[in-house]
């Protein structure tokens, strides 16, 4: 039984200009101890998908799914109280903006200990010791002193480490990292990624790593799910995906990697992810796809079998066509 199983997840926002479907029939399956990467440009609904699972979306969002199960429990069935017992304990999440994700009015120690008190019921002394231990674990020097420091006194990288310490405080079984390195300097990015993968290895927790950077995926994940405009367009083990991408979108993302560039300029995918008003009727990627024809523009594609990476495409790229292409 997978640790997390979500089938056909749809999230629709009620906006002033009508409903907007930010997530459109997405599937996520994560096994215990697995690392799943979800890749896609910004605006593809990656964050919304995770927030839907955590129950963090505002009331304007309508969330529907066929299955939304964590460790055998149906998340949609849980009362808000039961769900709170799960969030921050068994499922923890870290976010893109470390500087604004910590409360500026409370010191670091308070915010870490708060999670410990909420879920583990440790006493004062135990909380204090555990907090120091956690800061040590995420590589923050002189942790005892750092407990009394406020978020604005730390750098972005340090704040993200604090966020990670807070997230792993109650030994979660699933950690969701939503673009954990996007807001950080390049040198710090690698350190934080190493920290995350190291922690994942040591604790055996499962991890969903959300990113828009294929480079990050290559170094960390085992399986990759590619998301576009609220849909999963392809899913493969990481090595297979890098070797033989089946969806043109994946192909284009990979071609945009600096180390794969053949010309001087980085090839970029022209255009942007469709928003509320320019959603195509056929394949959502068709307006930007170099291979698209009339069928693509008029008919939504079906999902291909596993051998073709579940690609949501009329004309998936196979190894053979790639040669001829």
């Amino acid at each position: 039984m997978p640790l997390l199983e979500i089938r056909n997840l749809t999230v629709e926002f009620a906006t002033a200009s009508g409903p907007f479907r930010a997530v459109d029939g997405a599937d996520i399956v994560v096994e215990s101890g697995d690392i799943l990467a979800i890749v896609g440009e910004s605006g593809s609904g990656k964050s919304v998908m995770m927030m839907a699972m955590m129950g963090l979306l505002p009331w304007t969002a309508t969330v529907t799914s066929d299955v939304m199960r964590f460790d055998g429990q149906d998340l949609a069935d849980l009362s808000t109280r039961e769900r709170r017992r799960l969030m921050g304990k068994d499922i923890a999440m870290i976010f893109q903006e470390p500087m604004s994700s910590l409360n500026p009015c409370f010191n670091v120690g308070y915010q870490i200990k708060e999670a410990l008190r909420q879920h583990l019921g440790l006493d004062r002394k135990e909380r204090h010791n555990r907090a120091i231990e956690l800061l040590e674990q995420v590589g923050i020097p002189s942790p005892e002193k750092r407990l009394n420091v406020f978020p604005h006194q730390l750098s972005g990288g340090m704040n993200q480490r604090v966020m990670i310490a807070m997230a792993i405080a109650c030994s979660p079984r699933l950690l969701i990292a939503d673009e954990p390195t996007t807001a950080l300097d390049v040198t710090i990015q690698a350190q934080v990624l190493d920290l995350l993968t190291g922690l994942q290895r040591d604790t055996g927790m499962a991890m969903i790593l959300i990113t828009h950077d294929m480079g990050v995926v290559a170094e960390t994940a085992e399986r990759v799910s590619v998301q576009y405009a609220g849909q999963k367009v392809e899913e493969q083990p990481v090595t297979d995906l890098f070797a033989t991408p089946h969806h043109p979108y994946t192909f284009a993302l990979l071609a945009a990697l600096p180390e794969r560039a053949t010309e001087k300029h980085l090839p970029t995918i022209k255009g942007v992810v469709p928003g509320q008003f320019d959603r195509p009727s056929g394949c959502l990627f068709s307006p930007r796809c170099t291979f698209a024809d009339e069928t693509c523009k008029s008919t939504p594609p079906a999902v291909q079998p596993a051998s073709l990476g579940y690609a949501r495409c009329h004309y998936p790229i196979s190894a053979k066509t790639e040669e001829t292409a």
Partner: protein
Amino acid sequence: MLKYFLARLLTFLPTFVGVTLISFSFIRLLPGDPIIVMAGERGMSEERYNALMQEFGFDQPILVQYWDYLLGVVQGDLGQSFVTKRPVWDEFFALFPATLELSICAMIFAVMLGLPAGVIAAVNRGKLPDRLFMSIALVGYSMPIFWWALLLIIVFSGNLGMTPVSGRIDLLYYFDSTTGFMLIDSLLSGQEGAFRSAVRHLILPVIVLGTIPLAVIARQTRSAMLEVLSEDYIRTARAKGLTPARVNGIHALRNALIPVITVIGLMVGTLLAGAILTETIFSWPGIGKWMVDSIFRRDYPVVQGGLMLIAVMVMIVNLTVDVLYGFINPKIRKR
């Protein structure tokens, strides 16, 4: 922190000079001659009039009068009342506790109801509690104090006979003032029913004086909370599985308090202005009533000294708020 405090203190200097100037000129701009008013209906001989003019220094040029006043202020001498002949300073501090007691109680009333109302409205944005509270706040804010006071008096004192309409305590009770605060003094006196009587006398004035601050605090809390609730750290707090009470009441409110405290500080001036009206309506023997009476008597030293002391009080409160601000917002403390 000390440097911050001193810097703030320095900025009060020009304000202070301005206040002396305004308080000095305000009463002189009103038509009416204090000596004539003092003489009343009996009138006064030419010689006596001139002698008094000289005694009070009104024969001097206005700038010299101001300078004398300023010199006195710097030495802590505000002159003495034309009417009672007692030092303004003494009169002010004899009456100030009554005003302070009323104002503090009104502020407590406003904060105790305004903060929760603002939080509940923000958390239930657009729903019934939000609309209800904000409509009430709007009505409360726009209500003329006089009219509101009369309405309360008619209903609670007139129809229901529940509350007294004037003074600080029933005439039945008599005891020496130790602290000047009737609530405390009545308790200290040990007389049965004295405290209850003091409380009952406070209720209507406190409601009347506290209504506008209550409305302002509720609205300010609501808008500050709405802003804070969309912050990333609130999402983090919820992702941690904290209860809504903790998320809204601790993580959000703590941040929302920063602008609210500023507003509370700024409202002290409004509160004192309101106290003048409220004290007059309820015959509350505080500085508000004292000031109004003195204005009618053209008691120059009392009006100018009283105004200045009130202004200084407001400045002190604002300074306190600034310091408090630093404690609530760690980002400022470190600067």
